[in-house]
């Protein structure tokens, strides 16, 4: 479709919005209410453009003006976000039209009419779209000399989100977000006209995905309570990386200041998390900068004393002296990177220990064939024994996206379409496309078909014994693009017989399967031989080991003999250890993680203060030194070279959005433990103020800014 923007001719797909046409032409137009993943509503009226179209005569020919079709201009500027471009349309932006420039400046003046201009003290300063756009498109002066309207300030919507009603410019992004994305209508406009403010009647925001509204608020009205007043945007070191709290692998930006992790914000990865992240990923980061182990600890006369690495290595050498290196059991947390896994595998082979394990994991690997985009665009989804809120929260958002028609905004050279006109407010949802069997309490509220009891759910689905299960099986059989999501309740008891039944179902119905791994990188580590070999002790038999090395695992038990713990904090297990080595968190690692789809995603190192903390590769090198062996992997480069050999993938230069590559065979072994997924760990506590992060206690806050009674519907 031919469209002309500021005399630049463009060829755009049908259905493109005026806003995207302007950006496609490389021009700029300010906007506050439009958002790539929310419905366009034309609320802020900032994206005004002049537009005109050719018109046809009654005989179907174009009305001509000389050689060219005559353009009939609309009498007034139009909001570009809700306007669909049509064949031959002309658009003028502020760059070429004085009318538009004046209208935008006037609109900016109007938007700022009652805005409190807290910029010097507002924590959004430096990242505020209103501030930036007022500078670029405003008059630079206001003609309104009266006192501004005052509303509630510092109003805690929840423990995590603070609302400042004065600053709100009524773009409605947060209201639309809650309605359209997690499907929880807890925020809305109250009152009307100039009195309008945002509030909730539910007494707070639902935990799960509430933090996203602090990202999308174009002003400082909704602020992240964990991060606010910790630094200005330009003071942070921004590190684009991947979240390693669950197997989804959301794209995040880690903001550090003076070596402290102050803020985590969502980053766009169209294939994985779009632009949303869960509350645990956003707010559960306080542990990265608090109570960290910064130096090795060595047990001297029954007590753990600070030491340096040399002393720690010496203590290990003494402790393991006289022991066969093959008796040293090696266990690592399954959120370790592929590189770390490869390093451990290499060391295990070198010393010949059969006792190697990673945790958490399941006793069997179920092959995953679906991607998150497959889930979002499926026409039927059956969730089996999964509590997505604990196992993979953002997957829940992708399932909800499927319920509203699976519309993924198109991509332009300037990025994701900013105003996708197919997205509508209060979209029609299709609950009949979703069946939830067991688990997933939150998601079942949206499901057309709910069956309780997650135990044996897979076996029961394969041989349906009730009408509801038969309906769920029929849903998979009749859909064109069905997806089956398997969660912890199912995966910890997958037998060979069940796996065969599942593969039969997959071939029969063309169902794609998404098995949620037990840990952030379980999927990747399963391709390395990190399970107990013949005669070896699994992680469940740690207490029997003559000596053990545990990396960031906290079973609360120690090995029978010498125990080395590598962790970021002084955990219960670390307190029992003989030597404790300081580790780094997932925010400070370089390496590769594999998410639940099998997508290789890069981890990058944020500038955090970790003292002498070391990642697993360096720690294993030190351990090898203590054992008197020379391991092949002594750094990231050699680990990546080994991965290229072992798995046939080059992970040295992964794109931000990651890539899906086959990683070859997987290793499995039975496990004697049952894994219960829990997203929030103790140290990421949901009440950050309880964790000494110096955020005032909620009771204190309420006492300070006491919520006054709202007059409600009366003026």
């Amino acid at each position, binding site marked *: 479709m031919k469209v002309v923007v500021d005399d630049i001719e463009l060829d755009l797909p049908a259905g493109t919005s005026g806003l995207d046409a302007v950006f496609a032409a490389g021009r700029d137009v300010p906007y506050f209410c439009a958002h790539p993943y929310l419905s366009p509503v034309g609320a802020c009226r900032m994206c005004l453009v002049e537009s005109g179209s050719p018109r046809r005569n009654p005989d179907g020919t174009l009305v001509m003006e000389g050689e060219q079709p005559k353009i009939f201009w609309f009498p007034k500027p139009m909001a570009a976000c809700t306007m669909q471009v049509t064949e031959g349309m002309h658009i003028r932006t502020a760059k070429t039209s004085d009318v538009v420039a004046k209208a935008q400046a006037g609109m900016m003046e109007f938007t700022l009419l009652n805005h409190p201009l807290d910029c010097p003290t507002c924590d959004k300063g430096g990242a505020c779209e209103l501030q930036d756009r007022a500078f670029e498109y405003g008059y630079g002066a206001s003609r309104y000399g009266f006192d501004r309207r005052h509303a509630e300030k510092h109003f805690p919507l929840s423990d995590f989100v603070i609302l400042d009603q004065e600053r709100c410019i009524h773009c409605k992004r947060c209201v639309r977000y809650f309605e359209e994305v997690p499907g929880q209508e807890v925020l809305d406009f109250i009152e009307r006209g100039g009195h309008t403010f945002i509030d909730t009647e539910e007494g707070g925001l639902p935990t799960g995905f509430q933090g996203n509204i602090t990202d999308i608020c174009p002003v400082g009205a909704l602020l992240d309570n964990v991060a606010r007043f910790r630094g200005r945007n330009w003071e942070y070191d921004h590190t684009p990386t991947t979240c390693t709290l669950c197997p989804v692998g959301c794209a995040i930006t880690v903001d550090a200041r003076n070596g402290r992790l102050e803020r985590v914000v969502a980053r766009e990865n169209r294939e994985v998390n779009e632009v949303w992240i869960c509350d645990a990923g956003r707010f559960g980061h306080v542990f990265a900068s608090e109570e960290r182990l910064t130096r090795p600890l060595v047990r001297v006369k029954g007590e753990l004393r600070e030491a340096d690495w040399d002393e720690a290595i010496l203590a290990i050498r003494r402790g393991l002296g006289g022991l066969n290196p093959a008796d040293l059991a090696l266990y690592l947390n399954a959120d370790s990177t592929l590189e770390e896994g490869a390093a451990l595998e290499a060391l295990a082979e070198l010393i010949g220990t059969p006792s190697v394990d990673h945790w958490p994991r399941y006793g069997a690997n179920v092959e995953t064939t679906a991607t998150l985009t497959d889930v979002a665009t499926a026409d039927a989804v059956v969730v089996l024994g999964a509590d997505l809120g604990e196992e993979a929260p953002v997957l829940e958002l992708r399932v909800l996206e499927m319920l509203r028609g699976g519309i993924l905004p198109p991509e332009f050279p300037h990025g994701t379409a900013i105003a996708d006109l197919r997205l509508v407010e209060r979209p029609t949802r299709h609950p009949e496309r979703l069946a939830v069997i067991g688990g997933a309490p939150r998601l079942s509220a949206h499901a057309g078909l709910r069956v309780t009891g997650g135990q044996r759910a897979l076996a029961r689905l394969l041989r349906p014994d009730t009408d509801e299960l038969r309906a769920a099986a029929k849903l998979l059989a009749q859909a064109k693009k069905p997806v089956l999501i398997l969660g912890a309740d199912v995966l910890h008891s997958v037998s060979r017989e069940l796996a065969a039944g599942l593969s039969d179902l997959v071939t029969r119905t063309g169902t794609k399967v998404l098995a949620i791994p037990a840990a952030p990188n379980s999927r990747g580590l399963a391709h390395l031989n990190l399970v107990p070999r013949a005669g070896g002790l699994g992680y469940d038999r740690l207490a029997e080991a003559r000596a053990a090395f545990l990396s960031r695992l906290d079973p609360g038990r120690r090995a029978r003999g010498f125990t080395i713990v590598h962790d970021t904090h002084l955990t219960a297990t670390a307190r029992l250890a003989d030597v404790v080595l300081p580790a780094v968190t997932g925010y400070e690692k370089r390496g590769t993680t594999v998410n639940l789809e099998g997508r290789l995603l890069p981890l990058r190192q944020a500038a955090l203060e970790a003292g002498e903390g070391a990642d697993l590769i360096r720690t294993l090198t030190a351990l090898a030194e203590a054992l008197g062996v020379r391991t092949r992997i002594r750094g990231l480069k050699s680990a990546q070279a080994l991965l290229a050999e072992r798995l046939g993938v080059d992970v040295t230069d992964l794109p931000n959005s990651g890539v899906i590559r086959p990683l070859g065979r997987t290793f499995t072994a039975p496990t004697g433990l049952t894994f219960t997924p829990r997203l929030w760990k103790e140290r990421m506590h949901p009440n950050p103020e309880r964790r000494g992060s110096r955020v005032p206690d909620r009771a204190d806050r309420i006492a300070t800014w006491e919520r006054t009674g709202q007059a409600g519907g009366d*003026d």
Partner: protein
Amino acid sequence: MSYFADKPSLLADIFSRYPATPQGRRSALMPLLREVQDAEGFVSEARLAEIAQLCGTTATEVRSVMSFYSTYHTLPTGRYHLQVCSTLMCALAGSDELWDYLVSELDVVPGEVTPDGRFSVQKVECLGSCGTAPVVQLNDEGYYEQVTRTKCDRLLAALRAETPPPPDHPVPVTVREDGRQMLASGERVGASVADLVPLGGEA
């Protein structure tokens, strides 16, 4: 205590006016609010939550819709709820002065009820009677027009004596069962659905 629990036929009647879909259920929000307000004088938080549940939505959304209209109240109102139009025409004709006088005379501000439970006041948007500004509306009943200070005194005295004077202009009350409008005085005005004739003459 629930308001609608013992009124299944009323509920069925209200919901029957809308399509039997989730969207249709939400549409019943306004008549449910009106029902509660007519009965209790205002809509409390408990009622708000009850209506949200009936409509399959959240209390936030009910409050959002409700707060858009100045005719719904979240706080109790007095027996005589005086609403002063504050839009431009009335303002030019002295509604601000009238409001100040009324508020100081009754010693009551919006959201409050006088200790005797008799009066409450509210500023409202355009009452659509610019020609007779300034205008005061009493409850849902009718307009007192061109309200000067003397007229206001007379009105308050009458109300204190529990003898509300007849309104200068009864408010049209819309939609009786036949779709006909009716004034508060009971006079029928306008046409009803029965008067509609299909295009092209008798069917």
